[in-house]
């Protein structure tokens, strides 16, 4: 992989794809993240709200994108990380996280890259878009 310090505008991070998101994944993520909202783990509650089934936590997708970042830089190099949740991630979806450097600049004497980020499903749905600023 391109050395982090030599990365330039247009550089694409190696995409990260997940296995289909199962009920087990959601149960584990509920416990580990502390988000016990039953809409993600209890089909009865989801159906009482008119949905067919539970759906994935948005923060699970944000965590996958976080993995994409920390596969590339040390976590302490991340300065900013933000996302907008654009669509629900249904059960059994396979998510792919991608990122690309769109700008490089110097802030507080530090060389920083701005990355454009996204998570997409196999059917093309873009569930999440965002950006991050990392120190190079």
């Amino acid at each position, binding site marked *: 992989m391109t050395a982090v310090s030599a990365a330039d505008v247009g550089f694409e991070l190696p995409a990260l794809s997940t296995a289909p998101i199962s009920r087990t994944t959601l149960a*584990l993520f509920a416990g580990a*993240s502390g*988000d016990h909202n039953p809409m993600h783990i209890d089909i009865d509650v989801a159906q*009482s709200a008119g949905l067919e089934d539970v759906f994935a936590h948005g923060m699970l997708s944000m965590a996958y994108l976080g993995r994409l*970042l920390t596969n590339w830089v040390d976590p302490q190099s991340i300065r900013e990380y*933000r996302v907008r*949740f654009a669509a629900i991630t249904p059960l059994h979806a396979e998510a792919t996280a991608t990122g690309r450097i769109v700008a490089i600049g110097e802030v507080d004497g530090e060389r920083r890259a701005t990355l454009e980020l996204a998570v997409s499903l196999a059917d093309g749905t873009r569930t999440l878009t965002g950006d991050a600023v990392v120190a190079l």
Partner: protein
Amino acid sequence: MSLNPSVIGTQLPPITMTMDRGRLRFFAKAIGETNPVFTDLQAAQAAGHRDLPVPPTFLFGIELESPDPFAWLSDLGVDLRRVLHGEQSFTYHCQAVAGDVLTASPRIANVYTKKGGALEFIEKTSVVTRDSGDVVAELTSVIVVRNPEPPQ
């Protein structure tokens, strides 16, 4: 339901959570993390961390450690089944690691409606500090409430 703008500025109770190695490894498992820096103390230390580093989004969970983490939404009259997470941002000031005692201090920063009241938005900002007083990160969450029908 219609949110009263007078709630803007409301401070919510601070929540303290100790970053625990076991919990961080559980989180790593849940998100399919394979980078040993997050699970193996030696790998973390070899990478220059005092202990296992806290992954970038884990800080979101500090406030969820309270006994009834969604009570503040219920108190606003929000039906939790109609809530979606709209946006989330983190600004990081230093790296938290296992063993750190972190406190999140949340505040309702804004409420507003769109689409004639069909969608309501609640913006919450939280400052996360280490017990030494250092600011670790600032978080902003935008929560979307989908109302079943327009309010009268």
